[in-house]
């Protein structure tokens, strides 16, 4: 398999606490890999290790087929990144910051600067000092800097933080274009699961430093079960009707007024007719599908962690 990123049993301990613990990830060339997990799960630490900013205590990292060593900086030429927050030299303008970036990266096609600024919608503000930028603008500028040299790999730590919904949509399109037009591999972390769901080909779920699961989105879709959600005024009676009259046993009373029915042999129409016939008030009923969010919470729930 042609992987852009591979890690083997990576471990990093800070003050007796494992920030990253035995993590082995596999990011295929050209794919978008969503790295999700709660705050403090170890996402940023792992990304820093990939960028040679933090040295692992154990394990190895292989980027583009080559093992990362503490003094191997040449690989960084192929990587664009955002780590933690969008940091800049605030007294310089956006254009000057990008120009410096090109110089340090040894990238001489300065025409790309205008193009990158155009992609992120900052052409008009290019000659403003970064100190005058809002956090959202800085985030856009950080994305521009990351893509500026058309890298083979983008490592993006929470890149859509502080962006408005329009900005999120635009950046999602931009990342997709980078992936499809240039074959860029994108390793992206985010806690906005609906976003990751829309963009990622594969996701890795990390919690308490441990990688819980690495799974392709197509496999997740198989897990995403359909069910019928009914909001009723008497869940006890509704449960009785489902069992006794409709012979449905695979359901769950989720709250005082909500039932989830997983046995789909009966249609919504039939179920609602049975409820009405038994004088059960219905506030709403319809088919639903589990989202990545629900899958994520299943995985990161206490049981999931214990089972590892």
């Amino acid at each position, binding site marked *: 398999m042609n992987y852009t990123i591979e890690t083997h049993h990576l471990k990093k301990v800070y003050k007796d606490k494992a920030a990253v613990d035995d993590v082995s990830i596999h990011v295929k060339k050209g794919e978008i890999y969503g790295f999700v997990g709660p705050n403090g799960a170890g996402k940023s630490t792992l990304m820093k290790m990939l960028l040679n900013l*933090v040295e692992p205590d154990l394990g190895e990292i292989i980027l583009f087929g080559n093992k990362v060593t503490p003094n191997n900086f040449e690989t960084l030429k192929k990587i664009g990144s955002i780590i933690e927050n969008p940091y800049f030299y605030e007294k310089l303008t956006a254009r000057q910051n990008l120009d*410096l*970036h090109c110089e340090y990266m040894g990238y001489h096609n300065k025409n790309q600067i205008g193009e990158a600024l155009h992609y992120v919608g900052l052409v008009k503000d290019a000659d403003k000092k970064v100190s005058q930028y809002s956090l959202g603008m800085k985030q856009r500028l950080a994305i521009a800097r990351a893509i500026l040299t058309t890298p083979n790999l983008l490592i993006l730590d929470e890149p859509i933080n502080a962006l408005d919904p329009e900005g999120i949509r635009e950046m999602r399109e931009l990342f997709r274009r980078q992936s499809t037009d240039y074959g860029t591999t994108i390793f992206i972390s985010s806690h906005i699961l609906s976003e990751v769901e829309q963009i990622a080909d594969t996701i890795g779920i990390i919690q308490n430093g441990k990688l819980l699961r690495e799974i392709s989105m197509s496999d997740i879709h198989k897990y995403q079960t359909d069910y019928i959600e009914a909001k009723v005024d008497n869940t006890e009676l509704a449960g009785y009707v489902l069992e006794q009259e409709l012979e449905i046993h695979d359901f769950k009373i989720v709250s005082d007024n909500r039932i989830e029915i997983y046995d789909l042999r009966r249609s919504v129409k039939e179920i609602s007719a049975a409820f009405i016939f038994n004088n059960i008030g219905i506030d709403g009923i319809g088919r639903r599908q589990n989202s990545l969010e629900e899958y994520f919470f299943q995985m990161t729930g206490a049981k999931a962690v214990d089972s590892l």
Partner: protein
Amino acid sequence: MMHLMKLELRKVGLKKYIMISVAGILISMYFLLVGLNDSSTVRDSYETAFTMVGMIFCFYYVTLFSVLVSSYIVNEYNHKTILIMFSYPIDRKKLMAAKLLLITLLVMVSMMIGYICCGLLIIMADQYFGLIKGEFETSVLHYWIPTALKAIITFCALGMGTFVAGMIKKSVPMTIVSAMLFCYIRQFYIAGRNLHGEDWLFVIGVVAVTMAGVYYTLIHKIGQVD
């Protein structure tokens, strides 16, 4: 290396540094003049007048060096811009060495100009106001030039020492305080040995200790960003 130094200079700019540097030289000249004009003490000779320049410059330039170290290096860690620097395909030791060399070069040039200005001030103070004991002769330069050279090397080495101290905890206060401490050590040494300036033993000692510290810092300290 030159290219990296130029890039550093683009980041920090020269204007502010030149202003601070000029102001520092003018203030030093003012203190020097006040010292020379102090009627309560014995009139200075050309030798002792130059010792006063060394003392003023030690405090000013070692502190200035530490301020530049704080602003160009330590703050890169505090403001996390070092994460950008270290994402470039360049050896990090080289990046840091370029910063340190740039600071050394800036301080060195300013010190040279400062010594020339203060030297001229001493000569003029004698010519027009007779504040110095004895006459100015070119032989005075045979004493002044090596003294200034030793001082410049020592102050730059002490300045680099503030980099070593500051990088222990990546702390601005520690960088600045260490500058004060190093100045006092220098004064104690000179006063203790009854010298008018650094002797070569002190210069070589300071340079050797500093180089060892800088080497250790470049190898063990700069890569720690978390």
